[in-house]
């Protein structure tokens, strides 16, 4: 049963990812990203990471995907069919992609992974909150500072600059 769900989610994830990477229409790419994010969220749930799965949907689907669709709509004329983009350098790209895939497959298949005996699926929220305010307090605070900087930086970068004639 678990294996069947895994294969379905894997097919959803990889199929959508292929559409993202190869589709000629950028709007199809943007919306296919939804399938990838939801598939990965389902895999997190299958791996007993309930909180991570919910946060994946909230952050990626609710935040990043909406931002990307905004960017697509703002940078392209929707009625313009030529929004698709040509691919260049297929041969070197194929070589690099093949090398990356082969190296990772050899590493994954060849290694002997350690496994803890009978891991129980339990709610993870308690442990996550405990770790964030315990041993991981410094990276946690650092991440919040990074997010604040990003908030200000995005506003500064994307605003329209208005020069004053008499000022400064």
């Amino acid at each position: 049963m678990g294996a069947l769900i895994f294969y379905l989610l894997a097919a959803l994830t990889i199929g959508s990812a292929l559409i993202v990477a190869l589709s000629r229409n950028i709007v199809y790419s943007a919306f296919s990203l939804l399938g990838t994010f939801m598939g990965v969220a389902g895999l997190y749930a299958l791996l007993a990471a309930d909180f991570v799965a919910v946060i994946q949907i909230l952050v990626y689907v609710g935040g990043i995907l909406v931002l990307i669709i905004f960017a697509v709509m703002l940078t392209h004329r929707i009625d313009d069919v030529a929004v698709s983009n040509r691919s260049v350098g297929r041969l070197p790209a194929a070589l690099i992609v093949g090398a990356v895939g082969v190296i990772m497959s050899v590493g994954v298949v060849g290694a002997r992974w350690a496994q803890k005996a009978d891991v129980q699926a339990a709610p993870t929220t308690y442990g996550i909150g405990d770790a964030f305010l315990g041993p991981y307090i410094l990276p946690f605070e650092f991440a919040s500072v990074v997010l604040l900087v990003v908030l200000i930086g995005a506003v500064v970068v994307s605003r329209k600059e208005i020069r004053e004639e008499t000022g400064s």
Partner: protein
Amino acid sequence: MVPISYHLILSGILFTIGVMGVLLRRNTIIIFMAVELMLNAVNLSFVAFARQLGSMDGQLIVFFVMSVAAAEAAVGLAIILSVFRNRETVNADELNLMRW
């Protein structure tokens, strides 16, 4: 329970598709989406290892990766919009102002 090598192979395939997107496409927004695919692939292997080792650390690192991805999305898309306003294009081949 599905063995961890299946999850890692899936993660590797997802990462490879992301590399393919970055290398093959010239639209900066698509390159951006492919980078998100790669980040998701890495997150998937982190969660798989957290499950495998019965440890919480992998899931915690996923949160930091997600916050960095959100930061990257906000700033990156702001930069893309700003470039589009100035240059009227998001094609990576035409953005050659800094090319030597």
